[in-house]
């Protein structure tokens, strides 16, 4: 791509980001400091908390929680999804519950988890897990169920054992569908993380937001929100990348 072409493609993005930043900066001069602060002060607050080490500590705590919940969700959700697809009776028995839980706004369960498990680290991981696991299960089941019977027949014609059938056919076929679920789980897990940090024992970036709000430290509050936004955007990109990476062949299916 020539530099000119690259510029004309990226120019609108750059311009819109700069305009957004300018609007943020300027609008703060016409609103009250109680709920809005200019971008420059927000960034300054971000730098200050980074210098003091608070930012690093809180971000690490949040990420630790997030990754724990997400990892458990993937490790439980994907195998469970394949199992459900393969064992018909189990699927029929649990289908309705999974649909119900998938449709339930998980925030509604938080008070219940609080009274059951209290304020430790485990209940918070459980919240992230619950937010993340259902899209993984759901997409994996749908994927494994849609496997083309011809491919299983090919495996049988070449005298595949059940174990090889799983390794050579079931798992590779289901992987891209599981990745779609994982992409959704990446986004929902982040919501779960903030919710857990708000409603269970305050910690991490959620705690930074709450403290900013309680102390009328608007720049600090906005800094934490900005950080979560950036984190979300990066994770979404990562999810999309992973999905594409594993799903190249799906173009062939449809």
């Amino acid at each position, binding site marked *: 791509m020539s530099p000119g072409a690259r510029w004309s493609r990226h120019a609108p993005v750059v311009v819109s980001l700069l305009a957004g930043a300018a609007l943020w900066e300027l609008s703060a001069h016409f609103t009250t400091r109680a709920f809005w602060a200019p971008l420059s002060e927000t960034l300054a607050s971000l730098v200050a908390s980074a210098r003091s080490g608070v930012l690093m500590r809180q971000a690490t705590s949040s990420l630790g929680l997030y990754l724990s919940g997400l990892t458990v969700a993937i490790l439980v959700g994907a195998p469970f999804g394949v199992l459900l697809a393969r064992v018909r009776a189990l699927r029929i028995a649990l289908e309705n519950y999974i649909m119900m839980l998938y449709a339930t706004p998980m925030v509604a369960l938080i008070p219940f988890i609080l009274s059951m498990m209290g304020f430790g680290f485990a209940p918070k991981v459980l919240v992230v897990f619950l937010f993340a696991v259902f899209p993984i299960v759901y997409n994996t089941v749908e994927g494994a169920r849609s496997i083309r019977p011809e*491919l299983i027949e*090919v495996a049988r014609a070449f005298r595949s054992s059940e174990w090889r059938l799983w390794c*050579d056919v079931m798992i590779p076929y289901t992987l891209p569908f599981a990745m779609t679920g994982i992409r959704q789980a990446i986004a929902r897990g982040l919501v779960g993380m903030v919710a857990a940090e708000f409603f269970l024992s305050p910690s991490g970036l959620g705690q930074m937001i709450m403290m900013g709000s309680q102390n009328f430290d608007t720049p600090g509050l906005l800094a934490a929100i900005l950080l979560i936004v950036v984190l979300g955007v990066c994770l979404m990109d990562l999810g999309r990348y992973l999905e594409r990476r594993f799903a*190249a062949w799906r173009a062939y299916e449809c």
Partner: protein
Amino acid sequence: MNDTTGGERPRIVMTGAGKRYDALQVFCDIDLDVGEREVLAIIGPSGCGKTTLLRCIDGLLALSAGEIRIEGERMVAPREGVAMVFQHFGLFPWKTVFQNVAYGLKLAGCPKAEISARVPKYINLVGLAGFEGYYPYQISGGMQQRCGLARALSVEPRVLLMDEPFGAVDAQTREILQFELLRIWEMRPTTMVFVTHSIDEAVLMGDRVMVLQGRPSRVHEIIAVDLPRPRDRATLAMPRFAALRERVWGALMDDARRAEFEVKR
């Protein structure tokens, strides 16, 4: 009982073979031997049970009457020495051409060194050299079926089962592939059962053409194809080819016309 050509020992023996799916009797009373170096073409209208019969021969499906033996052994499950080429190609979309061709060898427990020697040989044989690293969705239908053919040939089967292998490719590619297959068969003649619904293809490929007909399907007629081998494009121009073509056409048509004008009740 029908004699096999050339008085060889039969490799496939079908006796009273019948298959029903619950209420639907697909075919019955199929008695036929296929010789060691014989190509049996099976032709019949679509839905008459050609795929079902081929699956039974391969041992993927159980018969509901009679039996099918290959090399004396009753076919109750797929066995070594028999390979199938599928109408829908049956390639794994996440595997490259090389990996797809290697699939059968891998399952057969072939050592790595032998796989990496044998796979290129068969990729060359079907004319796919240079495409080893491509995925099925990156190559044409004709090339995909070449890959399916290489996968079946690579296990060096003594019986090759072909289920309308060229039914899903365009007419021109189909002709090219027919002559390629004849060339490959000529190099290593084996037992082949070739299912098709193209009359030309049946006559061009087969030493005999078995016409299936009726509901349930039965062997309506077996037509010996006395065209010389090796066969090639010139075969199509022979007067004998045209005559045999007409015979198969005639055998198929009495039924097809009846079916076309059948009133659904």
